[in-house]
């Protein structure tokens, strides 16, 4: 066993709120660095694990803005459990492209899709209490909880995510230089 393996590993949780999972795919784009990462961290709740609730963690990576009630609950649970909370990608940072619905009336949106669309067998806006209600606007996550760091991009490149994570894990203040900083 190397020296590295004996060090207590940091716990990392990740989630996608009103995201497209593109930021998680970009995270996987760090390719073989994943093996390196697996020696440095342990994963808590994440779409990549089976853990259902976020436990105490060092780092929480949040993809996606906040568009419904469940997003709010998950985001608050992450904030309560993660020492460092990171907004990953354009959606988490400013609502992203989903926030383009903010200039439309929510009810009109739902009726357009679930009632007025042609070829629907049983038109009607879903109303089961199991389903989380949409918020009238899509919000960046920093409007709901305090956020420690932001990694811009739609999505941020694997290189950008790796630079950020390796800085953070090593105890350096993460800094994204010009070539890693993209909003698109």
């Amino acid at each position: 066993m190397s020296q590295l393996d004996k060090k207590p590993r940091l716990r990392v949780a990740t989630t996608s709120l009103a995201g497209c999972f593109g930021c998680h795919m970009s995270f996987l784009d760090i390719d073989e660095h994943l093996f390196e990462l697996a020696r440095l961290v342990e994963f808590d709740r994440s779409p990549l694990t089976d853990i259902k609730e976020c436990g105490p963690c060092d780092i929480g990576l949040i993809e996606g803005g906040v568009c419904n009630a469940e997003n709010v609950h998950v985001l608050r649970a992450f904030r309560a459990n993660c020492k460092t909370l990171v907004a990953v990608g354009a959606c988490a940072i400013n609502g992203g492209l989903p926030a383009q619905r903010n200039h439309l009336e929510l009810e009109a949106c739902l009726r357009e899709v679930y009632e007025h669309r042609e070829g629907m067998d049983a038109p009607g806006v879903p109303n089961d209490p199991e389903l989380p209600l949409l918020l009238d606007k899509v919000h960046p996550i920093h409007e709901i909880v305090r956020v420690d760091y932001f990694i811009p991009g739609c999505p941020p490149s694997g290189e950008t995510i790796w630079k950020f994570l390796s800085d953070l894990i090593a105890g350096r203040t993460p800094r994204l230089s010009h070539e890693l900083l993209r909003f698109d």
Partner: protein
Amino acid sequence: MSGHFMFDGRPVPFEAGQTILEAARAAGHYIPHLCWHPDFPPHGSCKLCMVKVGGRHVSSCALEAKEGMEVESNTPEMNGERRALLQMLFVEGNHFCPSCEKSGNCQLQAQAYELEMTSARFDHFFPVRPVDASHPDILLDFNRCIFCELCVRASRDVDGKSVFALTNRGIHKHLVVNAESGQLGDTDFSADDLAANICPVGVILHKRVGFEVPIGERTYDEVPISVVSMRDKGSKP
């Protein structure tokens, strides 16, 4: 009359009547800016070019250089103020870069990269201003306007058409088209007008050419705006 002033501790020569920004650029020193353009008088709205002179923050595009001035520009304090101004501009509009045709060629975005802005920090306004697609060759998305008035100035002073204007006050200020209908299609605006080609952000867009330039080859993909802007410091903003 001419003289020298100190710019971040280095002497910079100036001719009488030159502003701090003009003299600094002539000497090879970049000062961030959005509403300033070498072919137009200073506008003073973006405030990005502000520098510290004698303990006060002043717009370097508008203030004439004077003998012996001590100017601070590229300092953590001034760059921090500039970053805050950029953050305000970002939350005031709908700057969804991932779907904007101007991404990579946008001066607002390039300034944000230059000043290492990672988020807009403030709460978003999410303005609702309908796009104007009435013109055969040009599309207008008013939600990205930063009120630099370059289109207003170009259309009025160069094209001689006065197609654009800013209207209303305070946060309700916005860009409008000078036509009875308010539609660009009802003006004599042309895609060849200077006003059609001067917008620093993604408001005035040419139709059918969006996303033509591959990622990696756009204006600010390779080098920061501070480098691009100084390549041809006479004529390019």
